[in-house]
């Protein structure tokens, strides 16, 4: 649609604040943003087209590489969808280990998102503290699964490797240390007067607009909508999970929800380690034909796989609906409209935790 505007400011695809290439064309009236258009296509690899016709053993690794930041949850949702199709049961110990891997992944993803936000508002000190903390979480992931990123930990009917007792003790001790540091950094973020100036009341996303755009994850929970797919997951129900939410609807709330969720993840992992059942970690099973729609809660929100498989476990049809699609859409068409300056556009955009690799696949 051609429109006449005051100034049209393109941001990206290469921009100091954006981790990934995306092009944001902001229409500004003076300094105020009146509209924005997103140009994608820099990361379109056609991963769903590659997946078609391949056996699940290959698609499992492809699914992990939809997104490198939240690879564990892509792995988990794909495998659990295949399990649902084939009626494979998971041993209780494996189910708990899955939750541990998933929550560690969520912690590192949230820490990275908050680092990006602090970096964007030029609070580099806090950003570096958080990035250092993230490295400690990455160590825990490596210890548990054997790799930092793309670890392929979860397989149909179980997980790949067990957690021995000394490592579990080490994990607990590290979590205590991480929690202590996190309390300090969260306090720094919550009380910083300059941070509040850049974050509070900027980038408002009303609950109605959020609901229209089907916003999910921390972005929705910061707008007062307590949606969380973990509520429907049997293992999380056993752990007595309750989502956190805030009603401020601004950048500050989105970052704080992520901080709160890191603490929640730490608690969940502790609870898992405490009641970790004894037994096998691999039950086994055969992938069969079927069709399903399965959702799981990624660090960024609801991740849905639409899968159709044939009797040999090959994927016939697949479509992935990632949380970033909805969050970026709401961010660019609702949040950044009315933002007071161009400098706030990048910080508002980053506060929604955009992941372009997920969005375009």
């Amino acid at each position, binding site marked *: *649609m051609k429109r006449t505007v005051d100034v049209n400011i*393109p941001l990206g695809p290469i921009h100091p604040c954006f981790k990934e290439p995306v092009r944001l064309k902001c229409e500004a009236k003076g300094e105020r943003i009146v509209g924005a*258009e*997103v*140009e*994608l*296509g820099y990361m*379109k690899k*056609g991963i*769903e087209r590659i997946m078609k016709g391949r056996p699940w053993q290959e698609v499992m690794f492809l699914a992990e590489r939809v997104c490198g930041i939240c690879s564990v949850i892509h792995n988990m949702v794909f495998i659990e969808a295949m399990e649902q199709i084939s009626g494979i049961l998971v041993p209780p110990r494996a189910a708990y280990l899955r939750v541990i891997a998933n929550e560690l992944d969520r912690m590192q993803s949230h820490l990275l998102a908050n680092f990006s936000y602090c970096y964007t508002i030029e609070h580099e000190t806090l950003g570096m503290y958080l990035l250092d903390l993230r490295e400690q979480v990455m160590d825990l992931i490596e210890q548990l699964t054997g790799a930092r990123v793309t670890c392929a930990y979860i397989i149909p009917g179980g997980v790949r490797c067990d957690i021995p007792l000394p490592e579990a003790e080490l994990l607990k001790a590290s979590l205590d240390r991480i929690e202590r540091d996190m309390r300090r950094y969260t306090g720094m973020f919550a009380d910083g007067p300059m941070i509040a100036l850049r974050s509070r009341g900027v980038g408002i996303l009303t609950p109605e607009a959020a*609901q*229209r*755009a*089907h916003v999910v994850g921390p972005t929705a929970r910061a707008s007062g909508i307590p949606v969380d797919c973990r509520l429907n997951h049997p293992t999380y129900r056993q752990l007595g999970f309750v989502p956190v939410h805030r009603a401020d609807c601004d950048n500050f709330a989105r970052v704080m929800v992520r901080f709160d969720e890191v603490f929640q993840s730490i608690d969940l992992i502790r609870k898992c380690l405490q009641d970790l059942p004894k037994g096998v970690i691999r039950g086994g099973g055969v992938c069969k034909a079927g069709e399903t729609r399965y959702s799981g809660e990624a660090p960024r929100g609801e991740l849905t796989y*639409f899968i159709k498989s044939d009797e040999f476990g090959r994927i016939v*049809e*697949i*479509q992935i*609906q990632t949380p970033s*699609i*909805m969050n*970026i*859409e709401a961010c*660019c*068409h609702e949040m950044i409209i009315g933002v007071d300056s161009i400098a706030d556009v990048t910080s508002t955009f980053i506060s929604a935790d955009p992941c372009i690799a997920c*969005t*375009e696949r």
Partner: protein
Amino acid sequence: MTTYLYEKDLVPQKYRILVANRHDALVRKIAAELDIPVQELRRYLIEHLDMILLENLPARYEMADANADQDDPVARVLGREKYTLYLPILPDAAMDAIFHAVNDRVRAGTAMEDAIAYGRVQIREVLRR
């Protein structure tokens, strides 16, 4: 003819988004509902919506199905909020005018189906404009 320094023709990229499984099924569904050729609707969507909105069409359609126009049956069948708020295909003013025209007809005693059919013709007119 103006040549842009950075701008690129995005039609092939947008088309690739629209022919993915779920998006394709959705576009066919909307085309059947409004009774216009699929390719014509695709062209309209590519010209009027940006890429992230095209990616988000299925999620928005689901929300529209669940929440749009709960209290007004005529608006629901016509898709008053669905095609303006949830899927921003039509301009608000045009949709309002069509809705009021249809509502008047229903009140004047025209059968519901005929009035809706009239509304659909009007929507098609707007889309073709």
